[in-house]
């Protein structure tokens, strides 16, 4: 205590206290705050699973345990969950693979998070859904590339790397297969940007809902979201926006997101003018004023 008593009136003591307090809050917040839902994209491999690989009975168990409490045993819905008989396999795959389902809180919008079940479980669940519950709705667009393969699904490094290479080639072929930037841009800016933002950074919606950012979304997830219309999102079926147009659109937004920042290493998360104004004041003007204080202070000392 003596050490503190001796130094607490030091000219720098105030700054030290402020820095310590800020550090305490920062570290404390980081420790207490829920981990950010930076979900790893996890989806099925690009192939349609063959009937031999899936277990419908296991899928029924999963459905009854994790879905039926809200959507009912026949998928007909209840007070807490909607009827999913006409949602289609694309919707099930989208909702479960992005971790939105099963929901922790049926009353509020779910954020993206890691998938709660294994890919095999999801395949089983979808097989059961297709066989017993489904009455309509869009199919999973298996031809559109999903997320990268997961290491734990492969026995050795060689087969994993081969799968990874194949995935990257598929992804590249899909993105590069689109060549009409103007069409993709117009489709995206007309239909998507007013909620998800020009760069897919997400945005606020009415009544406490929000449009999620779609940086992590795989082409297949974007496609599935368009055909199934999750949450407040409208449905863009393949007759409204044709598959080739969807490819242009997805390719536009993925290329835009992969675009490097030509203007400097700090892109301010591409938030735009709010962040620029903030930096202009807090960094730009503050530094210049600090300089003004500095040069006039020097002057005064020699007066």
């Amino acid at each position, binding site marked *: 205590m003596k050490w503190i008593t001796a130094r607490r009136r030091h000219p720098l003591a105030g700054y030290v206290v402020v820095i310590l307090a800020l550090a305490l809050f920062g570290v404390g917040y980081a420790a207490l705050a829920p981990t950010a839902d930076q979900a790893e994209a996890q989806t099925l491999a690009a192939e349609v699973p063959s009937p031999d690989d899936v277990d419908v009975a296991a899928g029924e168990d999963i459905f009854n345990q994790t879905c039926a409490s809200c959507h009912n045993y026949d998928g007909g819905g209840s007070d807490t969950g909607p009827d999913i008989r006409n949602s289609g396999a694309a919707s099930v795959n989208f909702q479960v693979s992005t971790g939105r389902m099963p929901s922790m809180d049926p009353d509020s919008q779910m954020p993206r998070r890691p998938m709660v079940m294994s890919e095999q479980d999801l395949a089983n669940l979808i097989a059961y859904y297709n066989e017993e519950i489904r009455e309509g709705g869009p199919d999973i667009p298996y031809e559109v590339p999903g997320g990268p393969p997961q290491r734990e699904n492969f026995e050795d490094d060689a087969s994993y790397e081969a799968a990874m290479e194949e995935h990257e080639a598929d992804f590249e072929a899909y993105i590069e297969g689109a060549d009409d930037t103007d069409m993709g841009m117009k489709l995206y800016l007309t239909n998507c940007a007013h909620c998800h933002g020009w760069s897919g950074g997400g945005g606020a919606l009415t009544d406490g809902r929000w449009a999620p950012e779609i940086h992590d979304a795989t082409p297949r997830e974007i496609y599935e979201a368009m055909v199934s219309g999750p949450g407040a999102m409208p449905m863009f079926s393949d007759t409204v926006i044709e598959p080739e147009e969807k490819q242009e659109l997805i390719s536009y937004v993925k290329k835009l997101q992969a675009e490097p920042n030509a*203007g400097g290493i700090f892109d301010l998360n591409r938030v735009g003018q709010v962040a620029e104004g903030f930096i202009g004041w807090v960094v730009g003007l503050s530094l*210049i004023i600090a300089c003004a204080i500095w040069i006039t202070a020097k002057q005064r000392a020699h007066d």
Partner: protein
Amino acid sequence: MSKTTQAPKALRGVGNFIDDRFHLAKTGEKNLRKVFPNHWSFMLGEIALYSFIILLVSGVFLTLWFKPSMLEVVYDGAYERLQGVPMSEAYASTLYIDFEVRGGFLVRQIHHWAALIFVASLVVHMLRVFFTGAFRKPREINWLIGVAIFGLAMVEGLFGYSLPDDLPSGMGVRILQGVMLALPLVGPYISMFLFGGEFPGEDIITRLYMLHVLLIPALLLGLIVAHFMILWHQKHTQYPGTGRTDKTVVGTPMYPAFAVKAGGFFFFTFAVTAGLSGFVQINPIHLFGPFTPTSITSGLQPDWYMGFMEGSLRIFPNWFDIAPFGYAIPTAVLVPGLIVPGLIFGGLALWPFIEQWITGDKRARNVADRPRNAPVRTGVGVAGITFYGVLWLAGSNDILSETFSIDLYLTTYIFRVLAIVGPILGYIIAKRICLGLQRRDRETLEHGYESGTIQQLPSGEFIEVHKRSSDETIHVLENKPPLTSTALSEPEVDDKGVENPKTRKGPGKLRLALARWYTKDNVSLDDVEPYSGHHLHHSVPEGEKEATH
């Protein structure tokens, strides 16, 4: 005069040549020795000047390649992603500046960052002038010029933002047209006049270009020159201190000290602007893409200085929209888009005259006020900042809502309440802080300052030893200007018992009420002798209410 102080012969020759023709020696000598008071807050206006110079220079560079044309072209330039996309020539030439002109991207970013800093420094400079009362006689005209520069700078920025014809610029023009159309009767005509037709078409970029590079900069330049010449002529205000009066200025001479300082400061301002431009991406139009009438995006805002307009548009309710005789008057656009900024700028322009009317102070004031010594003015200023700040924040409510996971509608309600409650609270709190500081001034004058040394008296009592303040402090405190109004010194009833006719009618009555509001609660230091307080006693002496420890 000794030989050593003479200038070298070559210089003398040039000097004599000029002096023989223009007789500048005397004027030059006088102006070079002009004294400038030293304080960091007196440099804020210079930041604006230097940013303006940077804007002019970088702007000239950009005009060498920018084509203000709405002619549709198919892009075939260096930026691969947009090749084959139809766009306006304005947008294509901006991409050309970004990707094919050497240093073009950097200069465009310098131009944009300098614009943000230019308006920001205008605001802080104006706040400094307001809070120190430097707008008082004889500087009212210069204050008005300053307000005009501020307003023009906003419009200039908006037009510049709209020129590249990228996604956000189109959206900005769309709002601009909406606000114009909201004007009853004349709105549609003004819009048709500006856009050259019923709909924003192909003329607008060319016209905005003329306004942005010619008309408004010329006006700004003229006003800035006038601002400086008046400043030069009237001399700078200074903070109170020994030897500083309304008749004498204390500071450093223009040449060499101030000139070196100011010159160095220019380079620092430029360094910060260029540093930001080199490392922080601003307004990446190549990512936004060209504007088409169907395109729209969430999360886009105007540049910061238009944020308060955006905010007032966002939070103003549509409850008052009326349509008399089938002619719609959209008050939800008209009030926030024109009346709110009108109130802010009108209030700024009128305040010097309102204050002068209240106080009846007709003297020339060259010594700046300490903000605490004019508590009501400071309170009003803080209320204004709060109002502006709330609107400004409201302009980014979608970003705030998304970043902090707050319900978007809730932010609207919060800002609606804050826009009314915030300024009132701001006024009360700022005024109370001013009065508290005044009381502390009084105490410092009476007792000296608290030294932090604790002494135990023989009686066992502990006291904190007060020490004498510096002469400078005592001088400043003793010369606190009295806060009065001529309205208060006029007798309410004359010697014949007749009521003063001036205060019987509306304006006089209002003025008296305002004068009371302006001066009441002020702490007077007139009756205080320095160190007359019992600075060795901790207890409050009887009958002395003010001496609170």
